[in-house]
């Protein structure tokens, strides 16, 4: 089988590892580009949201590269993304592609379901469950390393002396992690990556602003979609914290550790699930405010209902907790220049706010 899947940020490296170790050929979906977007826009319903369109384009590219099996996730709750797998399948079949589509519920959240459906993939390659478990563990380990290294890169970037050097180092790290084959090698690659990133020349005297990033999962995770918001902010001297990582549920070292905590934080503003990441966006904003972040950026696909609901409540959260929130809407017409302008202005705003508060503090403390 030649297997492909949706591309979200750096996770493709771990998925590739898993697919190859299960004895299949992996067709790594190309990073979304304007070509992907054009294809996707052409073959998707006009009013579908941008993640849908980019995925359409990605699948077409992967199928053109020879993939015969597409693995994707379904979804739960009222968000329409749960139906996307089915709709994609219909569109692609109508275009004349011959392939099989396996729609999993979010694989990393519903492990049992994932495994059951995986049988289809394991059987032809004669992989035992035991072996599968081993490989899955290694892939998971890789995913954790990818996330850890990325988190570190976002922490280092605002201190870099030469603009762009963190990104170059980070790309080196990705190649390194990609090459790591066994659990030992994966563990070692992490050490090396940390070293590579830490050796980026830095000016530690800077005091970067801290900004939390919230919103719909696909546009938050895939840099092409958010026009590389973390890199852009990092190069403006801002340290970013993203609310969503694929491996997040297994961690408790991030400030936002449990879904329950997020829901509790959102409760004063929104009492019920509205699908997608709507409730998370509110809860995370509350938590960022309580953890002393300077600001929050919400990224949402145009027409994404859960995020629109969150967006209309966010001004209240922002006012109550005195934390500026910038909402960005993404669709195929979104230009990088406009986004850059808003981000720069937002950073100026946060800097001024910080200066004002420091002055007030200085006045009160008699300095």
């Amino acid at each position, binding site marked *: 089988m030649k297997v492909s899947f949706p591309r979200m940020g750096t996770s493709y490296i771990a998925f590739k590892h898993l697919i190859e170790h299960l004895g299949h050929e992996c067709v790594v979906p190309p990073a979304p580009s304007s070509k992907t977007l054009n294809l996707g826009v052409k073959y998707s319903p006009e009013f579908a949201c941008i993640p849908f369109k980019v995925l359409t384009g990605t699948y077409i590219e992967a199928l053109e590269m020879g993939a015969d099996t597409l693995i994707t996730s379904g979804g739960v709750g009222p968000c329409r993304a749960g139906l996307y797998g089915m709709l994609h399948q219909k569109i692609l079949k109508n275009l004349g592609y011959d392939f099989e589509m396996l729609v999993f519920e979010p694989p990393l959240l519903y492990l049992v379901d994932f495994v059951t459906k995986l049988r289809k993939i394991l059987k032809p390659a004669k992989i035992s469950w035991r072996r599968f478990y081993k490989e899955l563990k290694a892939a998971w380990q890789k995913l954790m390393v990818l996330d850890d290294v990325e988190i570190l890169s976002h922490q280092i970037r605002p201190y870099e002396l030469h603009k762009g050097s963190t990104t*170059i180092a980070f790309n080196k790290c990705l190649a390194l992690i990609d090459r790591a084959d066994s659990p030992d090698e994966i563990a070692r690659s992490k050490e090396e990556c940390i070293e590579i990133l830490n050796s980026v020349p830095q000016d530690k005297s800077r005091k970067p602003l801290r900004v939390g990033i919230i919103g719909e999962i696909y546009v938050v995770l895939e840099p092409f979609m958010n026009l590389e918001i973390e890199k852009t902010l990092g190069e403006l001297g801002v340290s970013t914290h993203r609310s969503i990582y694929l491996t997040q549920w297994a961690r408790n070292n991030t400030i936002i550790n449990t879904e329950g905590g997020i829901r509790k934080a959102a409760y004063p503003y929104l009492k019920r699930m509205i699908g997608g990441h709507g409730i998370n966006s509110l809860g995370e904003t509350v938590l960022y405010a309580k953890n002393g972040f300077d600001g929050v950026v919400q990224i949402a696909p145009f027409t994404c209902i859960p995020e629109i609901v969150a967006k209309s409540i966010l001004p209240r959260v922002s006012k109550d907790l005195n934390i500026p929130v910038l909402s960005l809407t993404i*669709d195929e017409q979104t230009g990088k220049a406009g986004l850059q302008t808003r981000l720069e202005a937002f950073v100026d705003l946060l800097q001024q706010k910080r200066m004002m508060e420091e002055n007030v503090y200085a006045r009160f403390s008699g300095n």
Partner: protein
Amino acid sequence: MLGFLGIDVGSVSTNFVVIDAESNILVHLYLRTQGQPIRVLQEGMQLVKDSLPSTFTIAGVGTTGSGRILAGVMIGADVIKNEITAHAVATSFLVPEVQTILEIGGQDSKIIILRNGVVTDFAMNTVCAAGTGSFLDQQAARLNIPIENFGEIALRSKNPVRIAGRCTVFAESDMIHKQQMGHNVEDIIAGLCEALVRNYLNNIGKGKEILEPIAFQGGVAANLGIRAAFEKALNKKIIIPKYFNVMGAIGAAILAKEEVKNRKTTSFRGFAAAEQEYQASSFECTGCSNACEIINIQMNRSIIARWGSRCGKWEHV
């Protein structure tokens, strides 16, 4: 004599301002970009040069607007700032204590909220790119009225008709409909102004606390009809700064002045820089599957700047 140059390169207009050490405005220039930012920049620089005494020295340059990076590289800017900050800086200078800035230009509309001289919130028109300025131009042409008279005629209306203003596409078709129903031109134009203002306040101004003093600027501020519609909708006084259509450039000039105060040198390439031959070109990198579009800026056939790569491999020239 010393002065500071501010340039605002937008998609519709490119503006130049020169201020002196006290921030008095010595030169202000409004040119149409017409999709050719490089040519307009060169033309503008020539005009600026000609309008200054030969003994005049430019001690600092700032650029802003969507073409700020391009302009910054070509002219040698000391500071390259986004247009939201530039506008806020200029307006706080010209309208002291300003708390709300309404800005409607050719393509972009925005609102900036300031408190105690500090920007605390802002918003720009989002996905819909229907530029109010361009839209008014079009409708004036359709009604066969010179755009300069548009506002005046609106003010003559006693009974503005209600026009659907969800977006300019709706507004246009509804306007044609009202025309066919036999409403007079004054009432239609006044209705159109009110529709655009309603639309602005509902989309961009939504959830914002609009406190006085309120400044209204950008190309559309010349339109008395829109101003009147704002005053009616908000029931508050609207101030139109004297240089309402070059505020971005003023802000850029002020920021340049502040920047060189600390640095004491300027990166300005001199007026001769504008006479060089410039070329912008782009190519698609095939280095990896990102397929980035790399932009090259060439001066006299040698590359002076390059941007657009995600991995950073092309940024160093």
